[in-house]
């Protein structure tokens, strides 16, 4: 019984973590937005919006620390579509990347990855549109 309670508690905690790590955010009818927490203290957000045969993709990392360098990647259907480097800035210590990718036939899976190689923190998120 104790064992059963213990396993159930772990499962509920894991479900709660997952819910906290990747939650849908408010969006327009055509937008799809997701946000969640990174491996340490930072948070991420990714938004995709169709636009005349393309998708406007907006990826964001908010670490609350200014001057951090993050290596980011946008994945499209599981493969790296584009990559780059960005530095957090502003009062919130964040960066945002905006790119346009092809809106292929059927649904598109857009992945958002960011790694801070100094702290080892990673952010992973994505949307399907």
């Amino acid at each position: 019984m104790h064992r059963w309670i213990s396993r159930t508690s772990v499962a509920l905690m894991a479900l709660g973590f997952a819910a906290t790590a990747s939650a849908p955010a408010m969006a327009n009818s055509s937008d799809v937005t997701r946000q969640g927490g990174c491996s340490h203290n930072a948070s991420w957000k990714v938004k995709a919006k169709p636009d005349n045969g393309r998708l406007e993709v907006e990826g964001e990392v908010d670490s609350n620390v200014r001057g951090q360098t993050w290596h980011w990647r946008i994945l499209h259907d599981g493969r790296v579509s584009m990559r780059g480097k960005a530095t957090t800035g502003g009062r919130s210590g964040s960066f945002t990347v905006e790119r346009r990718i092809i809106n292929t036939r059927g649904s598109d899976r857009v992945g958002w990855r960011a790694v801070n190689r100094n702290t080892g923190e990673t952010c992973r998120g994505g949307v399907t549109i």
Partner: protein
Amino acid sequence: MKQRPQPPRPGNPGTVAAARRRARNRPVLQFIAAGLVALAVLVVGTQWLSQRAATDEAVADARATTTLLARAVVQPALTRALVDEQSAALDRFDQLALKRLVVGDVLRIKIWNARGRIVYSDEARLIGHRFNLGAEERAVLLGGGSDAGLSDLTQSENRYERSFGRLLEVYTQVVVPGGEPLLFEAYYSYDTVSRRSAEVLGAFRPITVAALLLFMLLTVPLVWVLARRLGASAAERERLLMAAVEASEGERRRIARDLHDGVVQDLAGISFAASATARELADRPEVARRLEKLGSGVRHSLRALRSLLVEIYPPDLRTEGLAAALDDLVAPASAAGIEVNLHVDDTSHVRDEAVALVWRVAQEAVRNAVRHGRPTQMRVTVAVPGDLVVLLEVADNGAGFEPHTVPREGHLGLRGLRDLIVESGGRLDISSAPGEGTRVTLEVAT
């Protein structure tokens, strides 16, 4: 001796000078008009040729640009993944295309495979769709080379280009690693062609127009000088002709005066004397009859001589009147057995030049009829309808002639008068046919 009339002159000196000026200036004006026509033709022709040249040049430029883009940008970036429609590969090529291909004059690109599927286009909505490839496109896709043509914007694969207006599409072959050929198509605004045409035209037009204008500026004075010399030469010939005519007139006048004052008076005296003597010889009827016959013969000769005088030199139309002069003119015809019908309206209010012209034409026409036509009937009519024009008609039932053949000697006189008639604003018509007589009409303003 009576005052004799002068022959009709072609207008007053002012009119003559104006006519000479017109004659001199006409070739110059004709040359300028021909030059302007040539200029217009040259401008239009140059525009057409330069548009063709510019179009060819613009198309050649577009082909060269397309080939360069295909070799230097597209082909190195082609991957199997792109052809297989992998999303990330499309994104990467899209970034490249928007940055390095769809720039400047290039408004759109499309990459096709041999099955008519659009592998990539910067108009992303076309990617993955299939259309029928034209024969030319398929030939280039499979065989290489390049081609160009106006886009058919009614085709569904070009539906997103309709807002661009007229487009020139150029296509060439590119090859995927592995050997699969694709067709790279680039679209250019036709405004580029038009702009290029305007540039070429702008470069050539001033040269051609300026060259022709310069040529005209140089040649017009030469033509004007030439025309002036020709005019002076013509005037000199006219002056010599007039002098010859006047000399002839003077000689005729002298002969006529001598005959009139001498022989005619003598013959008249002899005629009267013979008749008077015949009347006094009542006791010798045979001698009286012979004298009367002699007087009659002399009067006949006197009449013939007077007709000859009329022919040698015209009568004084103002003093004697046109009717009397024409009566004398047709007298020999009557004497020759021709039935002459003469009718002359009052011409006292008609200007002298017109009366003289009527007289000259009547003289020539009657003379021709008697000499060449040998008619049995002749009608000479002078009418002044409405006091506006004088109409002369000389008609006969003689042999006639073919008006279009070279005129026989004698008819030249009438044709020679035609210039005088035209210059006086009149009109001369000669209608005739072999065996159907001749009708000469003159119409001249009063």
